Each structure stands twice: as structure tokens, then as C-alpha cells.
């Protein structure tokens, strides 16, 4: 397949179709809607299920039902819609059926706006729905990576009978870039031995998230944690840039990570030895990779398009052993490489304390930058 100029939302939709998607259920919400529209055109033409639901609540429950048949199924939405889906997400986790959910994240909280953001990190990575469960969360930084991760998402979801999120910030959904789509995979012909498809010549099957006896629910929770341990051991993914001789390392994912890469190149040109660690799996978190950096670098800069949601996870690993600084833009604002470069310069020149709260320091530095009067 040759490279084409593709919009992120459409590329992710087509990638899912080519990965053997059998059913899509969704609801329009900016900046994700082109994904639903592409499905509306393509899925019926291929004889596959497409339905625009009456709400995100209905969409996630349609997805839940469809997933119980063992088919490859998916929904997509953007932040407020994902919030609405949290009920169903918890039920799907509790029932252990595989689904893929694409979240094209926008500015919040509340109605917020339709600009790119990474404000859904906590609601996806650290739960949102009730109970103990851990989804896999993949964060692409380009249209090509979004395509590749959507395909991977289905394989991981089925391998572990889990929820896989592709968390793409609004940039990735709306941006056009040259990218290559995968070849069309056939729809699967065999379905797993738990799938509810009618008890033809076999014992009936029941799929449920109820374990009314707490002893059974505890066993289920333990099993979910065992699966999660396997995922943590085997599925951490990340990209690293210029880390070999790096004195300072930037950690950023998605669009923030990509902009940080430009900044790191600029810093290198000035002789500052900056490297970049870009987590691709936000969950499982690349904690071992960050741990290995702690003894090697003079400081870590976390860059996000939120108020430091991943920062908490980085600090949990670093435990105050090297200085950590934070730089974030919020509410749909996207940092320029210059802003991150300025932080890198500052880190290389100033003595950054080991203690104290990097978020508080950032707020103080950041206050004059905000467009208070616009």
C-alpha cells in the first residue's frame, strides 16, 4: 500500500475496518465525528453493522451487547461522551469482553471546547468507571501511529479479553498527514468459546458482570489483576529519542510528545543534551523505562496538554531522586516548541530542587503566560 494524505479520524476508522471490524456503534461529537461518518459510509457497504445510537450511553451498551457475540467491535467518542460511557465501560470490564474505544480528546472540564487536549488521561488511565479494572491505553503521536495502534488495539483486546482505548488528542483526529493503511484482513470465521451466539448443540452460555457472592467477586477481581500483571509485564510500549547521552529527559505522550521532540532537537542544536521518552502505552505505564533513567539523568521535564495528570505517575516512579519539572497547557491550548525549549534551557541552567511540588512551581511560572484578558 502506498502512502496517502489521510485525516486522523478517517484513517483510524479505515484502519479498524481493515482490522476486521464487524460492528460500530457511536454518537456524533466533535472533534471525532468524521470517524462516525466514515463508518456510516463504509460499514453498510461492506455488509457490516453500523448504528448511530441515541446517546453515548446507548452506544456503549450496544457495543457491550455486540462484544458479547465475540465479534470485533468498536465505538469512538470525545471526552464528554467518554464520561457518559463510563457506566458501560465498567460493565464491559467486569464481563471481560474485548472492545476497542477511540477517544479523540477535547478541552474540558464540562462542555469545555473542541480544541485538542489530553485532559482524559486520568479518567481513562486511572478509571472513571466503578470498581477495580485497568484498560490498555494507547496514545498515538501521528496519523500513521494512530493507524498502527488501532490495528494493535483489536489484537490486544482479544488476547487479554480487555478494553483497549486509543486516546488520540484532537490534533491527531483532525490533522492530515501522509500515512499508509494496512491491507484488508478478513472477518474472523471462528468465535471464542465464551461468545454468546445462541446455544446451538451446546450448553448455554451466560455473560454477566454480576458476582453476587462477594467471595466470587473477589476471585474475579483477583483474576483481573492477574491479567493486568501479565499486561504490565508484556505490553509496555514507548519510543525513545536521543536518550543515550541525555542529561535531561522530557517525558510526553501524543501531540505533546511530538512537539517536545521538535523542542529536543532545537535544544540539541544549542548543545543541551536533551532526550525524549514518549510513552505509547499510557496504561501499562512505562515505569521500568523511567526507573532506568533516574540514575542517569540530571532532571526530568514532563510535558502534557493538561494540568499534570501523567506527572503524578512519573513522580511515583522517580520518588524525589532526581529533579522533576512540569510544563502544561490546558483547556484546549497546545504548546509551541519554543515554550518547551525555554523550559529545557531553564532546567540546564538553574538548580531545580528535589523536593517541593513541580505543579506549584509551574503554576507560578505559567501565570504570566496565560491570556487573562482575551
Amino acid at each position, binding site marked *: 500500500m502506498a502512502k496517502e494524505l489521510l485525516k486522523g479520524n478517517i484513517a483510524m476508522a479505515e484502519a479498524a475496518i481493515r482490522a476486521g471490524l464487524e*460492528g460500530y456503534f457511536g454518537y456524533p461529537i466533535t472533534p471525532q465525528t468524521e470517524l462516525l461518518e466514515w463508518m456510516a459510509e463504509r460499514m453498510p457497504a461492506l455488509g457490516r453493522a453500523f448504528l448511530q445510537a441515541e446517546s453515548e450511553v*446507548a452506544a456503549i*451498551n450496544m457495543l457491550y451487547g455486540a462484544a458479547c457475540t465475540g465479534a470485533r467491535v468498536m465505538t469512538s467518542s470525545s471526552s464528554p461522551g467518554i464520561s457518559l460511557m463510563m457506566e458501560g465501560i465498567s460493565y464491559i470490564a467486569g464481563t471481560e469482553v474485548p472492545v476497542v474505544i477511540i477517544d479523540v480528546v477535547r478541552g474540558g472540564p464540562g462542555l469545555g471546547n473542541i480544541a485538542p487536549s489530553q485532559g482524559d488521561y486520568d479518567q481513562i488511565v486511572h478509571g472513571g468507571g466503578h470498581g477495580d479494572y485497568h484498560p490498555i491505553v494507547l496514545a498515538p503521536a501521528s496519523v500513521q501511529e494512530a493507524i498502527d495502534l488501532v490495528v494493535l488495539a483489536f489484537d490486544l483486546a482479544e488476547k487479554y479479553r480487555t478494553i483497549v482505548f486509543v486516546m488520540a488528542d484532537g490534533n491527531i483526529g483532525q490533522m492530515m498527514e501522509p500515512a499508509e493503511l494496512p491491507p484488508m484482513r478478513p472477518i474472523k470465521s471462528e468465535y471464542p468459546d465464551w461468545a*454468546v451466539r445462541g*446455544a446451538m448443540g451446546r450448553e448455554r452460555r451466560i*455473560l*454477566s458482570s*454480576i458476582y453476587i457472592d462477594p467471595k466470587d467477586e473477589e476471585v474475579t477481581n483477583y483474576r483481573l489483576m492477574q491479567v493486568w500483571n501479565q499486561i504490565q509485564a508484556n505490553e509496555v510500549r514507548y519510543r525513545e529519542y536521543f536518550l543515550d547521552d541525555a542529561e535531561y529527559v522530557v517525558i510526553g505522550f501524543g501531540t505533546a510528545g511530538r512537539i517536545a521532540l521538535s523542542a529536543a532537537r532545537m535544544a540539541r542544536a544549542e548543545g543541551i543534551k536533551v532526550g525524549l521518552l514518549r510513552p505509547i502505552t499510557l496504561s501499562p505505564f512505562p515505569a521500568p523505562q523511567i526507573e532506568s533513567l533516574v540514575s542517569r539523568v540530571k532532571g526530568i521535564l514532563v510535558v502534557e496538554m493538561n494540568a499534570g495528570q501523567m506527572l503524578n505517575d512519573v513522580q511515583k516512579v522517580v520518588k524525589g531522586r532526581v529533579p522533576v519539572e512540569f510544563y502544561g497547557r490546558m483547556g484546549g491550548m497546545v504548546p509551541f516548541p519554543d515554550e518547551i525549549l525555554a523550559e529545557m534551557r531553564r532546567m540546564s541552567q538553574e538548580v531545580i530542587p528535589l523536593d517541593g511540588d513541580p505543579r506549584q512551581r509551574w503554576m507560578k511560572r505559567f501565570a504570566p503566560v496565560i491570556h487573562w484578558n482575551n
Partner: protein
Amino acid sequence: METTLAAQIVYQRPQSLTEAAMHYCPGCTHGIAHRLIAEVMDEMSIRERAIGVAPVGCSVFAYNYFDCDFVEAAHGRAPAMATGIKRLLPDRVVFTYQGDGDLASIGMGEIVHAAGRGENISVFFINNAIYGMTSGQMAPTTLPGQKTTSSPRGRDVETMGYPLRMAELLSNLDGAGYVVRRSLHDPKNIRMAKKAIRLAFETQLRGLGFSMVELLSTCSTNWGLSPLESLKWLEEHMIPYYPIGDFKVAEALKEIKV
């Protein structure tokens, strides 16, 4: 000369029911509703391609009693879950079993849109005018003046609004193929209910759209009445507000004799 008559079974557990003992209270009509659905599944030979969707409410464990594939939905979301299954497996027989809190309160959006889309699923709606599992709170179908634990001085329509007549409401939607109300309070009505359940499945098999049978039911425990008094209360209080009748019957169904 001696003649021996061969023993003939005239009544037995339908194949579509499991042997599990039901957890329902004495006087509850869930057991009758389950049995009727199972008998119809047997008669139509659809057990092996049936997929049920259980609700949240007293019938949350319905899947323990039906010997067919089943899933368990979140509260009110059974029609959405059934939609997802039916869209992936259009040749299976997909049904939901829902109570009044599930279907007419928290699940109002899902049921209205499933009916509006003409979703080819069958819905069995148990209306007993109260929340059973949470032990007797006001339901959207609780009658004016009816005392419940959350309307302790009786449902005051000025502040708590009026009960919802779901069969009438859904029958107005173009996607509905078959929407009727029946009652489970006496043998004649139980026989009528079984025919309606048959027609609901026939609607689905013929692709005639959304089908729902509303079944007026009892809740002796939370009504605070004996099983016998409950049947009487249903007849005297519920039927005047919730008339038994056919609210939508697709033309193609009218020729079917069951």
C-alpha cells in the same frame, strides 16, 4: 378383560427452563411470565437460537432459569444491549425481560429509541407498579395515591407526576410492529398473555419491527398483601389505569392464528 392405560404426561417443565429453583417471593408472577416465555420458545423451537438480555431488578437472575444463551445488562440498558447483539446476529431471536423501573424509568431513552428504530427484538415488560428488588419504592408506573417506601403518604401527582402507560406510548412509534398489554392475574388472562408472547416472537421472526408485551404483575411482598389479595388488587386497581388491549398490531400479524 383388563386394559391398561399408558401413562401420559400432560404437564411438565418446558425444555427452555432450567431446573434451578426460582428465587422469587410467594405470590410473585415472575415465575408465570418466565414459564410462558419458555413454553413459547419450546413450541416455536427457538431455544437454540434465542439470546436473552436480563435487566436489573428482581429478575436480574432471569438467566439462571432460561436454558438459552443470556447476557446481563446494566440497569435500563437491555434494549441497547439487545440491539448490539441483534445487529451482529440478525438471524438469532433476541429478547429482553425488564421491569418497570428498568424499562420505564432509567431505561426510557433506550426503550423509546429501540422501538423507534423498529429494532427487531422482543421485549417482555413486567409492570408491577413498584420497585421490587430495592424493596418497595415508587416506580414510574406506581398508581396515583399508591403508598410506597418513597411515597409514604401515597403518590401525589402534583409533586410526583403521573404513571406512565408504556404500551400506549410505544405503540405510537412507527417502528413498533406489535405492542400489547396483558395481565397475569387469572388463568384466562394468562392464556391471553401466552398468545401475545407467541405473537411478539412471530413479529421478530418475520422482521416486522419492535415487539413488546407488557405484563401486569403482582408484588405481594412490597404491596404488603397476601398472594390472593394481590391478584385482586391488580384486577381492581391496575387494570382500570392500564387497560388490557392491543395497541399496535402490524397488518401481517393479523392473519396468524395461535
